[in-house]
C-alpha cells in the first residue's frame, strides 16, 4: 500500500513537473506569426561517409506554410502548405508535387512540422512524450519521444533547443539516419514578398 502511495506521488510529481515545463517553455517562446532566417543542416545518411551539409533560408508563416529554400550545395525550393507539398530543383528540372486532397496524411505531417519549427508544445505533446528542462534565464531544451504509431515508424526521437525561438532541431530517424538543423539570423520581418506570398497560397 505504501509503495502504491509512493508510486502515485511520483506519478503526480512527474505530471506536475511536465506541465510546469510546458508552461515554462510556452512563456519563454515568442510564437510570432512570421519567422524567417537562415538554416544549416547536417544530415547523416547510411551509405555516405561524411555528413551531407546544406544551407539556405526559410520562412515560416503561421497558418499558411513553410518555404525551405536550399542554396548550397545546389539550389532547390521546397514549399509546404496546408494543401500541398512541392519541390523543385533549379537546374535539371527535377520536380515533384503531392496534393493533400489526394494524400490526407500530408495534412497531419504538415501540422507536425509547423508545431516542431514553432515550438508548439501543446500540439507536440498530443503526439510525443515531452521531457526536458529550462536552461538559464530564457533558454529551454526538450526531448520528444513519439507516442503516435505513425510517427514512431519514422522517428526514434527528436531534440529541440531554443529560447524566444527554436534554435536547433535534431531528428533521429528509426533507420539510423539523423539530421541536425541550426537556425540563425532569426527575424520576424520583413513580411512575405510577392513571390513568397504566391508560393504560400498554393
Amino acid at each position: 500500500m505504501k509503495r502504491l502511495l509512493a508510486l502515485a506521488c511520483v506519478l503526480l510529481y512527474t505530471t506536475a513537473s511536465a506541465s510546469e515545463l510546458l508552461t515554462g517553455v510556452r512563456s519563454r517562446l515568442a510564437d510570432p506569426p512570421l519567422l524567417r532566417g537562415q538554416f544549416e543542416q547536417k544530415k547523416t545518411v547510411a551509405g555516405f561517409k561524411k555528413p551531407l551539409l546544406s544551407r539556405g533560408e526559410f520562412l515560416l508563416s503561421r497558418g499558411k506554410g513553410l518555404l525551405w529554400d536550399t542554396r548550397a550545395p545546389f539550389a532547390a525550393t521546397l514549399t509546404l502548405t496546408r494543401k500541398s507539398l512541392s519541390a523543385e530543383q533549379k537546374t535539371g528540372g527535377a520536380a515533384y508535387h503531392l496534393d493533400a486532397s489526394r494524400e490526407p496524411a500530408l495534412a497531419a505531417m504538415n501540422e507536425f512540422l509547423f508545431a516542431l519549427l514553432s515550438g508548439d508544445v501543446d500540439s507536440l505533446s498530443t503526439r510525443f512524450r515531452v521531457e526536458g528542462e529550462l536552461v538559464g534565464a530564457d533558454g529551454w531544451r526538450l526531448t520528444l519521444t513519439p507516442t503516435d504509431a505513425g510517427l514512431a515508424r519514422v522517428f526514434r526521437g527528436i531534440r529541440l533547443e531554443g529560447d524566444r525561438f527554436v534554435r536547433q532541431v535534431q531528428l533521429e530517424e528509426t533507420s539510423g539516419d539523423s539530421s541536425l538543423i541550426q537556425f540563425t539570423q532569426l527575424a520576424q520581418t520583413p513580411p512575405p514578398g510577392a513571390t513568397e506570398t504566391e508560393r504560400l497560397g498554393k
Partner: protein
Amino acid sequence: MGNRLAIVWALLVLAVGVHQVRFWRSARLETDILALLPEDEQAPQVGAATRKLADESGRQLVLLVGAPDWESAQRAAEAATEALSQAGAPLEPARVDATALDAAVEFYRPYRDRLLTPAQRAWLASATPEELGGTALMKLYQPAGARLTDWSDDPLGLWPDWWAARAAENEARPRDGRLWLSGEGREWVLLTWQSQVSAFALGDDAKVTAAVERARAAVAAIPGGRLVAAGVPLYAEAAASQASREISTIGLGSLVAVLLLVWLTFRSLRPIVLVGVSLMIGCAVALSVTALLFDRVHLLTLVFGASLVGVAEDYGFHYFAARQGKPAAERGRVMRFLLPGMLLALLTSVVAYLALGLAPFPGLRQMAVFAAAGLVGAFLTVLCWFPTFDLGDLPVTAFAERVSASLSRWPRITSEKRWWPAMAGLLVVSAGGLWRLETRDDLRQLQGAPANLLEDQRELGRLLGLPSPAQLFLVEGEDEEQVLQREVSLKQRLDALVADGVLTGYRAVSDWLPPASQQRADAELSARAEQRAVAAVAAATGEEPSRARFANDVLTPARFLSSPAAPAIRQQWLGPLGSKQYSVLMLRGLEGPAVLARLAAAAHGLEGVRWVDKTEEISRLMGRYRRLMGGLIVAGYLAVLVMLLARFKREAWRAWVPSALGTLLTLAFFGWVGEPLQLFTVLGLLLLLGMGVDYGIFLLEHPGDGSAWVAVALAGVSTLLSFGLLGLSATPALRTFGLAMLLGEVSIWILTPCFRMPPGKDIT
C-alpha cells in the same frame, strides 16, 4: 383399419415432435436475402465470388462517428465506444493489429524494386538522367521525410507513393491513434466492432441494434455529432424482429379467425381442438420437412409459412361441415364420401405450391416445400385422426343452417339475357385493366430492410469509398499468371474511365501482386533509372553510394497469399474453381446506374474478363421467370381443365371459369391501380389456380349440399384473411404475393357459387 391408420400417423407425429424440439434448440435460421437468390446459371463462379465477399463481413459492424471538427469527433467516438461496450451488448471491438502494416512492409521489402504505380512507370521510362539525379539529390537533402527504407534501398523515394496508392483504396487514414476521414462537412472516426454471436435465435431482443442506438444517442448529445452504422448483424436483427412480428400477426391472426369460425359454425369444443391440432401438426410437419431438406430455414419461409394456417384448415372444415347433424357412427362413411373431392383439392393445391419451386430461387423452393408438406400434414391428420377422435354428436347449429341456406339465395349466372350486360361490362373492365398492366422485375422486391438501415449503408459506403458489392469484374485464366495479366489489361482501360470520372477507383489483386512479367519489366526499369540517379548523387557528393540489391526471384502468388500483406485483398482472389483460376476486380465510387454501360463496355474484347452486374442479372432472371411462370399458369389452367373434364364431364367449366375469371379480374385490378406485375404476383396467381379450383370442385362434388357450401364459405373467409394479412408484410415480394392472393380469392369466392349447378341437377 381406421385405428391402425391413427396409430401409424401418431408415430409419425411423435417423430416430427422430437425433431421439432431438436430444431428449436439449435435454430439454424437464415436471414440473409442473398440466400434467397438463385445460383447464376451461366457462371457459378459469380455465386462463389458473391458468397466469399459476403462471408468476410458476416459479424462485422462498421461505424462512422462524425462531428464538425476533429476534437469533437474524437470525443464523440469515445462516447460511442463507451455506449457500445456497456454490459449486455454482445459486441467487442474488432482486433486492430497495429503490427500488420509493419509486417506487410517487411514482407514486401525485398521486392520493392518491382512495385511501381502506373504514374511512376511512365515517369521512370521518360525522365532524363538530370531529372533522375536532381530528384534523388533533393530527396537526399530534404530535412526529413516519411521514408520506409534506407536511402540506398530507394534512392528516388518511390516506395512511399506506392504505399499511398494502396492506402487510397480506402478513405480512412491513421490520425492520433484513430482511423480518420473527412467528408460531407464533418470529420469522422472509423470504428469497427464485431458481434460475438454469429447465429441468433428468433425473437432475440435485438441487442446489437439497441447498443448502436445507445451509441447514436450518446453521439447526438455532442453538437453536430452524427453516427452512421452498417453491418450484417444489424440487418439480421431487423429481419428477425420483423419476421417474428409478421409471423405472429399472420399466424395468430388467421388462427384466431379460423377457431372463431369453427366455434360459430359448430358450437362445440371438439372441432376447435381437432382443427387446431391439424393446423399445429401441419405447421410442424412443414417445418421439419423443410429443415430436413434444406440446410437452413429462411426467415421469410416462416413468414410465408404463417399464411399456411388459413389454407390447411380447409380439410377439417369440410369434414366437420359434412359430419354435422349426422350420428357419430356414420363418421367413417362421411370421410369416405368426402375423400375423392378432398384428395383432388389437395392434389391441385400441392401441385400449385410445388410449381412455385420451378423458379430457381432457393427461397421459393423452401416456401413451396414448406407449404406442400404442411398441407399434406394437415390433410393426413384429418384423414387419420378425425374419425378416431371425433366421438359423440355434432348437431347442426343455427349459424351453419343460415350459411347453408344462403347458397340458394346466391345469384346464379345463366345464359339468360339479363346477365349479358353484366358479363360484357366485366369483360371491358378486365380488358382495360390488362391493357394498362405494367411489369417490373426488381431485386429490391426481396429487400424488406428498414429504410434507415439502407440509408446508413449508402452513406457509409459513400464516405468510406467502399467498393460496390453488386457490380464487379470476374477475371478468368488458365493459371494465376494469366489471371493477373488479364487484370492488368483491364486496369489500363479502367484507368481511362477513372480519369473521366466514371468511377473513383478500383481494387485489384494485381495491384498487390503484379504479374511476374510486369515484375520483371518494372525491376529492370527501376534498376536502370536508380543506377543513373545513384551515379548523379555520387558525382555531386564525391562519395561512393550504392544501390541495394533486391530479391532475384519474382513474388509468386503462393508466397503472397500466405504473407501478412494478403488479408487486405485475399477475399478477391477466388483461386481455382474447376480447371481455371479466378479473381474479382472491385469498383469504387460508381455514381448511379448511368455509368454501368460504360463499365460493361470496358470488358468487351478482353478475353477472360466478364462484367458482372448482379442487380441487373437477377432482375433479368426474375423477368425471365415471370414470363415462364405466366406461361405455366396458362398451361396449368388447361391441365386443370382436362383434369376437371375427366371427372365432371360437361359441367367441368363450372369449377374452372370462376378461377380463370378471378385471375383475370385480379390482373385487371393491378392494371387499374398501377400496381406492377412482378414475378411474385405471378407466383401468387399460380397458387390461386391450385386453391381457387378447390371451391368449384367441392360445390360440384356435392351439388345442392348446403354443408359443402358451409365448408367452402368458411374456408374462403379464413384463406382470405391469411393472405390479406400476408399483404401487410414489410417485404415487398410477400406483399404483392398476398395482395394477388387476396384479390383473387375474393373474386373466386364470390364467383364460384354463381356458376353452381341448377337446383336438382346432379353431376352423375
